[in-house]
């Protein structure tokens, strides 16, 4: 456990993705089975403990420390698990040689089988056997607060790195595996065959598109490509199959393979076909696609209520068909897959299926014609659903479905984003590579205050700029600082002095968390407007008007 704790400790401080993978891979390489498999389960969020509540931890520490010193310490540290981990008195030196540092696997097994009344004593014994970091990790683990910034996908990528195996391959076999994943490690280390996938509804790594950049289509021929709308929902993969016992298993996955089924029981229940399809999850009311803001209201809920199911009915608009009735269609060209998808959708809809429809094709003869359609989706076939169109997707008619983001076959061409001219108000230092740069920016727009116009913050952006622009802003922040709050600097933002940033964003939503009452989607710095005095930046009224028009 101490070794695993040291890994968690290091991961919690490490901002770089590749470094996190290295750290995890190093741990998996150096740790034997079954310990590493249990660690993998912990890292991929497969462990859940319900018996250990903060109250129990408070009781344990109260029995062992002076209450005044505990309160002073808790007040200083600010985190219960951490305070207890640090204050926990070392057991008497003479005592237990039997008290070897517990293994993670021992702890996980113990927590599963222990009767509740034995938990305090056992937990105390484990804590006695661990060092400060070990105690911190154990307490975080059992209270379900293990946040070290490593996703399940990253942990699987680290496993793949043990051998020369693409992470997507691990993703493919993953659904059929259980803790402690012996067969998985054996396979990636080249000691055994690839584990069989027994899961009747496994996730298949998705195919992603590159963005069409400013340079446009260069030598690409319009006739080689199909176009369809890019819908502004959540990219999902719906998979349905039958288990060996003949039971139907249907799952809804996010594009990273996260299982979303529990959040969309209405949709899962309605999907009645054999196969795997790629599509967009949307809220559709009275045959009209709702905006992303509406979908988000359903996404943000922890539990699914009947009222929500009725008010926010979930649909899938199908893009692609990956398997059908046990046949893998991915090697087929898009043209063939599209024909199979159209046939399947027609059958399902004819059979009364009302939760699934087909994403329509956008006919075009030239890039100019497509540009016109992209500029006016309502007039180019999207009709009343145009507000939910994010742009157009281009797919080569002749390419198979390839996992990852291969360059060439698929392109996304988004509609021009909204933009607003805002004034830089605060800047914060970034992390990792950017720790010496002020790279996170809070910006505001003008609104009427008690004594004339004031700036109100409307968002935060930390990308969109080039490396050269980052240097310029960093230099400006350092020279125009008027106040410091820890790692944050307030910069000069007066009507005639300050920096105007052109902020691009995808949409607006009402927000009670922001003083301005609005929250932006994907805000980023589009341009630096050194030429523009802050007084000419936009006003909050402009955003409010946009909010009304977006519904």
């Amino acid at each position: 456990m101490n070794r695993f704790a040291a890994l968690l400790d290091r991961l919690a401080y490490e901002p770089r993705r590749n470094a996190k993978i290295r750290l995890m891979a190093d741990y998996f390489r150096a740790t034997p089975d079954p310990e590493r498999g249990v660690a993998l389960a912990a890292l991929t969020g497969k462990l859940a403990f319900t018996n250990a509540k903060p109250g129990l931890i408070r009781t344990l520490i109260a029995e062992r420390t002076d209450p005044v010193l505990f309160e002073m310490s808790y007040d200083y540290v600010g985190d219960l698990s951490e305070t207890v981990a640090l204050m926990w008195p070392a057991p008497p030196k003479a005592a237990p040689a039997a008290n070897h540092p517990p293994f993670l696997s021992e702890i996980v097994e113990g927590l599963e089988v222990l009767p509740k009344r034995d938990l305090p004593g056992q937990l105390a014994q484990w804590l006695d056997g661990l060092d400060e970091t070990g105690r911190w990790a154990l307490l975080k683990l059992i209270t379900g607060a293990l946040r070290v910034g490593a996703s399940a996908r990253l942990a699987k990528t680290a496993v793949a790195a043990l051998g020369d195996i693409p992470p997507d391959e691990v993703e493919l076999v993953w659904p059929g595996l259980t803790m402690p994943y012996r067969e998985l490690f054996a396979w990636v280390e080249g000691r055994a065959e690839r584990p069989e996938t027994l899961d009747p509804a496994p996730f298949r790594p998705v195919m992603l598109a590159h963005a069409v950049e400013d340079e446009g289509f260069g030598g690409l021929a319009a006739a080689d490509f199909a176009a369809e709308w890019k819908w502004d929902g959540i990219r999902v993969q719906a998979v349905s199959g039958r288990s060996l016992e003949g039971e139907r298993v249907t799952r809804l996955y996010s594009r990273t393979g996260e299982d979303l089924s529990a959040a969309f029981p209405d949709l899962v229940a309605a999907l009645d076909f054999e196969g795997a399809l790629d599509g967009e999850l949307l809220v559709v009311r009275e045959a009209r696609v709702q905006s992303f803001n509406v979908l988000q209201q359903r996404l943000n809920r922890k539990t699914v209520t009947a009222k929500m199911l009725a008010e926010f009915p979930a649909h899938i608009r199908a893009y692609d068909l990956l398997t059908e009735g046990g046949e893998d269609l991915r090697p087929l060209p898009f043209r063939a897959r599209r024909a199979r998808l159209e046939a399947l959708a027609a059958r399902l809809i004819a059979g009364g299926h009302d939760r699934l429809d087909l994403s329509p094709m956008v006919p075009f003869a030239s890039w100019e014609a497509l540009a016109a359609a992209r500029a006016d989706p309502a007039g180019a076939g999207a009709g009343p659903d145009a507000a939910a169109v994010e742009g157009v997707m281009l797919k080569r008619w002749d390419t198979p479905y390839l996992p990852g983001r291969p360059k060439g076959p698929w392109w996304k061409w988004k509609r021009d984003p909204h933009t607003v001219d805002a004034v830089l108000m605060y800047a914060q230092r970034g992390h990792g590579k950017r720790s010496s740069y002020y790279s996170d920016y809070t910006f505001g727009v003008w609104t009427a205050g008690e004594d004339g116009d004031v700036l109100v913050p409307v968002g935060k952006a930390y990308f969109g700029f080039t490396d050269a622009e980052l240097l310029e802003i960093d230099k400006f922040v350092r020279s125009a600082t008027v106040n410091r709050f820890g790692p944050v600097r307030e910069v000069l933002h007066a009507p005639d002095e300050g920096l105007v940033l052109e902020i691009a964003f995808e949409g607006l939503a009402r927000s009670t968390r922001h003083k301005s009452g609005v929250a932006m989607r994907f805000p980023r710095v589009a341009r630096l407007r050194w030429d523009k005095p802050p007084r000419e930046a936009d006003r909050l009224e402009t955003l409010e008007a946009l909010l009304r028009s977006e519904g």
Partner: protein
Amino acid sequence: MRPEDLLCPSPKGLYSPAGDFYVDPVRAVPRALITHGHSDHARRGHGQVLATRETLDLMALRYGANFAGATQALAYGESVDINGVRVTAHPAGHVLGSAQMALDWRGLTIVASGDYKDAADPTCAPFAPVRCHVFISEATFGLPVFRHPDAAAETAKLVNSVGLFPERAHILGAYSLGKAQRMMALLRQAGHAAPLYVHGALTEITDYYEAKGMALGPIRPVKGVAKAELAGAIVIAPPMALTDVWTRNFPDPVTAFASGWMRVRARARQRGIELPLVVSDHADWDGLTASVAATGCEELWVTHGAEDALVHWAGTRGLRARPLHMVGYAEEDEDAQAAAEGEPPPAAAEGEAEAGAGDGAP
């Protein structure tokens, strides 16, 4: 006769009415005893300064040879008489030359310990508890959450990280006097034999440690070294340099920081540290309480840090204790805090201050 007639707090620092001198005064005074060379304890401009030879030398390095009107060196175990008060220096184990000052007067002994630690340190003489009536202690880490782990194990974390990321530079933040040289010695003990690169702010003091006979292995100034050569290297710099534009000259650096403050995660995270090493030159909670007990004192005075917790602890042991609410100390740590916010520390000694813009860029 009260202890306060021998030593009492005053706005300029601890003052001895009987001997007419100050201990670690924060402003210029006619006569001062200096416990150690850190800038919050050792200030310039005093009339006469009594300290260990090492402390006097370090002050001269930082402030120039004319940092005081006159100086007098006192070796560990040696005594001098000042206006009837006998002053004896004892090792404090904090940094090279650090001393506890024991004051004897009319049968009463007060020990002003300055900053101290009871943990092993290859770069200075070990702390020796002194029997006394009144013990004056710091409480920088005076909360029971501060238990410094084995320094060798913390050092191993850095060495292992270099092994795991051989293409990255590891920049280790460490106070320029004491911590930096202790980390060099610890790295050598851990078997790291490669050259250690140092920021310009560290070279003079490190040279002094070496001149005093400490073997710190190959130490090289980082200034002028090609970026590619620093892959897999450990570079030691004052804490404030860690967030400076200076760090942009290193290959994908891992930022480490050796400090007792690294025990608390929020503090490490707030400063953007990626590899916190809990290595401190101050006593931890167990060290403070054990040291106080070892002096056999009847009364405990607490100068700076988490005074309330240590005073509370003394109360539970039936030991009379009072906080002195001294101001102006622990700035060596506060400096680092201010530096994390990108701000030149107001009271910074030259040694730290020059770490700022531009120095030592490779």
